[in-house]
């Protein structure tokens, strides 16, 4: 299980490449960190890997996940999970339903699905919050719920887009530890983009600086 980027680069149609071509191999349970100045295209890099690139961008190079070339696949078939800066919980669903929405369709039957969601909530320290409005959660609770939702979809790799930058400093260590522990437990490769050197240090993996072209 590994995520391999091979000379990946992104350009605005008709323009120059955003950053120098990036080659990188991330092994199972490993968290690689990409750092760089604002506007260099860190989020665009994640969009390219996950399959959310806007039509105005073109992409060159290759991305393979567990040996499959994923660039030709639509976003939903890539099995690449995304964790956002501000959680992006769906406001029309309860906390538990947000997780159920992520839970793989393989788990069948209402009772079994409910049990899987409750177990995930408990693991995230959110037991008893199944029917709560996501808007009523604290920042740390939202971050944990969002990570759980991503993991329940059984991704083969995880991308983290400045996942801790909106959290209070006091919460950050706790959520970092929680996130990285889950990634290691699942043994999936993860790629994180961040501004914060402390994030990179906590991740423990290789750190790549993204430089403008």
């Amino acid at each position: 299980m590994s995520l391999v980027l091979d000379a990946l680069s992104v350009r605005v149609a008709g323009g120059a490449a955003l950053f120098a071509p990036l080659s990188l191999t991330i092994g199972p349970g490993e968290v690689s960190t990409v750092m760089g100045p604002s506007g260099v295209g860190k989020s665009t890099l994640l969009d390219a890997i996950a399959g959310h690139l806007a039509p105005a961008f073109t992409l060159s190079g290759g991305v393979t996940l567990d040996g499959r070339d994923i660039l030709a696949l639509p976003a939903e078939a890539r099995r690449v999970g995304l964790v956002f800066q501000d959680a992006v919980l769906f406001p029309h669903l309860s906390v538990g339903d947000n997780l159920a929405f992520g839970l793989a369709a393989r788990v069948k039957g209402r009772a079994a699905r409910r049990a899987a969601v409750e177990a995930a909530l408990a693991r995230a320290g959110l037991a008893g919050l199944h029917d709560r409005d996501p808007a009523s959660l604290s920042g740390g609770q939202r971050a944990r719920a969002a990570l759980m939702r991503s993991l329940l979809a059984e991704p083969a790799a995880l991308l983290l887009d400045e996942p801790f930058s909106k959290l209070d400093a006091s919460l950050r260590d706790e959520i970092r530890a929680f996130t990285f522990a889950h990634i290691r437990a699942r043994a999936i490769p993860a790629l994180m983009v961040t501004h914060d050197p402390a994030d990179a240090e906590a991740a423990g993996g290789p750190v790549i600086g993204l430089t403008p072209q």
Partner: protein
Amino acid sequence: MRVAPEGRGLRALVLAALAFGLIGPIAAGLWATARAGFGVMPVIGATEASLAPWSALFALPGLATSLKVTAFTGIVSTLLSLILALALTAALQPRLTGGRAARLLAPFLAIPHAALAIGLAFVLTPSGWIARLLAPILGLDRPPDIALVGDPWGIALILGLMLKEVPFLMLVSLAGLTQIPLAQHLAAGRSLGYGRAAVWLKLIVPQLWPLIRLPVMVVLAYALSTVEMGLILGPSNPPVLAVLLTRLFFAPDTALLLPASAGALLQGGLVAAAFALLWLTERALAMAGRFWLCRGGRGHGLDPILPLARGLGMIAAALGALAMLALLTWSFAWRWPWPAALPESWSLRAWTGAAPGLARALGLTLALALATTALSLALAVAWLEGEDRARSPRAPWAEALIYLPLLVPQIGFLYGLNVLFLRLGLSGGLAAVIWAQALFVFPYVMITLSDPWRALDPRLARAAASLGAGPWRRLFTVKLPVLIAPILTAAAIGVAVSVAQYLPTLFMGAGRIATLTTEAVTLSSGSDRRVTGAYATLQTALPLAAYAAAFLVPALLHRDRRALRGGGA
């Protein structure tokens, strides 16, 4: 010391204008209609309250069929329009942003309902364009003997309504989407393994629905009570309810006014019942939807919907364009025997022959459009400025109030109102028509202008204030000039809505005010397609010109001001 909110006088003025100009008359019109529906109409000497109008109404031949076809066309056209509009928005959304969508949809929004219906009839009838094009292939030597327009099921009517309502629903959906973190939710849903169509259906539409519910209700109310489209495209015997009632209202026998009024109440009840059905469906879907969402099905099978919607959208756009082209071609045609695809000889005779009538109707239509739009724009600016000065957001009741004239069927209160005006000696004048049209122009102007007005950077007015500019100077020298593009867009929509009005002009003008629209609708039942084509072409050209001006004027005025060159709504 408590500081009194600014702009009290302005808000009192707006409130008075709304109470006496909008709510009061609608309520009075409904009241007069209700009284007439139960037998009391002193103008024609009916003073005894009774249920006789209702028994007369239900004794009309074909009433049950008429009700059925009205409900069918109204509900089916709204449902299909909503589905197609949402699917098209989902399919086109990555490429439809801001000004581009407005420019693409504007021509379809500008075309008056009546002109579209006439053009569509020219295309669809057995002797129309489609049959002419198919004739050589199918080996037809005369027009096929099937009812393609005015069919008993109202299919042609449904098609015509959809051509007008799909662009409108797309526009309000795109406006609603700007209030949802769309890109993030699309990415989040798809990274969880959901297909594009499934993400839209399960994540985006449930969030969008509360934002487009009122516009959908407007579409539903219109589809259930349209007169001009029902007249031109709907079944003729029995016609849809609103057409049946208009015939009764204008029948020479004044005794028929009583059952007609009862029918107007029935029309109101029909719309209310449809709203109740919508509400029940919404509740049921919300409950069923939760289980469906939590089952975790990734819905990859749904994705073919998107290219299908794109294909249907293209066909609809082509049909609309063909309808417009048919109007223009007929107005210049002279000899055009069946099954030739194009006229054998061309002529200006339709235009020159009808020139005096055309010119009169054009002048009147233009005057009405300018007057109603100016009136509505002034009221809308006063309302929005009043909100700004009070520094309070709009109350939900005020939002509902704006939509009120669009949700109550026109036929339910317009005739009652006309009766009141007759008593006051105001009927049949230009003023009455201006006022009646403004009732329907104002909501659209207000809705269009509200979002850009609120999006205006509040620091501009504050900066002006700190430089010593009072509230009026801030309004006229800062806010209005900066907002010129959206104001002109709202004005163009106002012109389009005013030009399209049929029933208010007919009822409040007592049949004496002949606009392009009333003339085109009247002519459409006759045989001369050339003259009808000329009226309908001119009727379409007027709002199109208004839209073009709304795009061009700000572009010219602000050619050196990059921040203001947004390009309309």
